């Protein structure tokens, strides 16, 4: 068992940081919350159907190496129904000039930036981000940090896992001790 007796409720405009040792179940918790993981006991309730309001970025950025940055982002937009100018979003994450480069030729950090570019498109009310700061450089972390706070100020609920702390009024959810009891 990864965790038990876990209960929390989050509302609009809040930023939740989920922490815990490696293997504590941070990713699993996020996957349960977005409905990808079905094997658990308990209940996850959202105010309205989650899918249309969710922006989920998983542990893997979901970027195909054969496609260019713009093609990847365009397809994400088509799937999620997010409006917005893809080039402007790629510009905002520092990928100006890399729009047509196949993602396979970009670095790990740049690939993650392609996925993160979705945060600069038309906003969604719920953001669930698994380790969004991984492989991002200092300047990028600062920009992402600012973006998360800006979104929360506009009423977006942000749930993320990372050791990076966004602002001072972030709520923390710490997942038990490493390993847990089987």
């Amino acid at each position: 068992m990864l965790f038990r007796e876990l209960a929390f409720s989050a509302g609009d405009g809040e930023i939740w940081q989920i922490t815990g040792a490696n293997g504590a179940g941070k990713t699993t918790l996020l996957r349960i919350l977005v409905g990808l993981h079905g094997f658990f006991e308990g209940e996850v309730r959202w105010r309205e159907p989650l899918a249309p309001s969710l922006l989920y970025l998983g542990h893997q950025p979901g970027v195909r190496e054969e496609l260019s940055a713009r093609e990847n982002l365009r397809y994400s937009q088509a799937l999620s129904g997010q409006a917005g100018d893809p080039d402007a979003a790629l510009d905002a994450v520092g990928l100006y000039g890399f729009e047509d480069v196949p993602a396979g030729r970009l670095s790990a950090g740049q690939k993650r930036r392609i996925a993160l570019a979705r945060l600069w498109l038309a906003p969604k009310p719920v953001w669930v981000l698994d380790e969004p700061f991984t492989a991002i450089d200092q300047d990028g972390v600062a920009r992402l940090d600012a973006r998360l706070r800006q979104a929360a100020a506009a009423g977006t609920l942000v749930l993320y896992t990372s050791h990076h702390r966004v602002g001072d009024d972030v709520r923390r959810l710490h997942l038990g001790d490493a390993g847990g009891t089987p």
Partner: protein
Amino acid sequence: MSGVWWAALRRELTLIWRAPADMAQPLFFFVVVVSLFPLGLSPKPELLALVAPGAVWVAALLAVMLSLDGLFRRDQESGALDQMLTAPVLSVVPVSAKLLAHWLLTGLPLALMAPLLGYMMQLPVAVLGTLMVSVLLGTPTLTVVGAIGAALTVGLNRGGILLAVLVLPLYIPVLVFGAGVVRTAQDGLPTDGLLAVLGAILALALSLGPLAVALGLRISAGD
């Protein structure tokens, strides 16, 4: 909804097109396997014509199955599969586009190549059209049914063998009727009935298959 479908179709075609080796592999396999029969069996025209329907069909069936092992693997490894499953569209929309794209660039070339291989295997020219139509009707079924197995085994490291075990029994009706059509044509009998059966199996696969694939992917993502 249809906008998503077209976007998905374009993406899938681009993805396959940019990995031409993956696309050529099933076709290459198909040609090589059928070409080995005259070498291993005997170049006697009567004998080749006798085994031709079965040989061409078995080779096509295995070629499709081999191509399916990696159908969802890269999407799963890159996290694109999770993006699809959490998107506000029914998963069956992008899934059906993926299956169509996969068939267009792997199954369709097999069907176009089949008459040439049939000719090489000494099938009478009059039968080659029937051979092509039977492969044309059969390969989409093989793709869709195989994709169900691929979806269920995508999370496993060595899914290849399990995929074969899951899928081959379901391939048997297609093989029996597909090769049967060609043999019937060889005997000069009418083939409409058998082709209609292949078409009926195809209709069943197309209507229910994509739903099963989408469900399989959701199950695979859940553990």
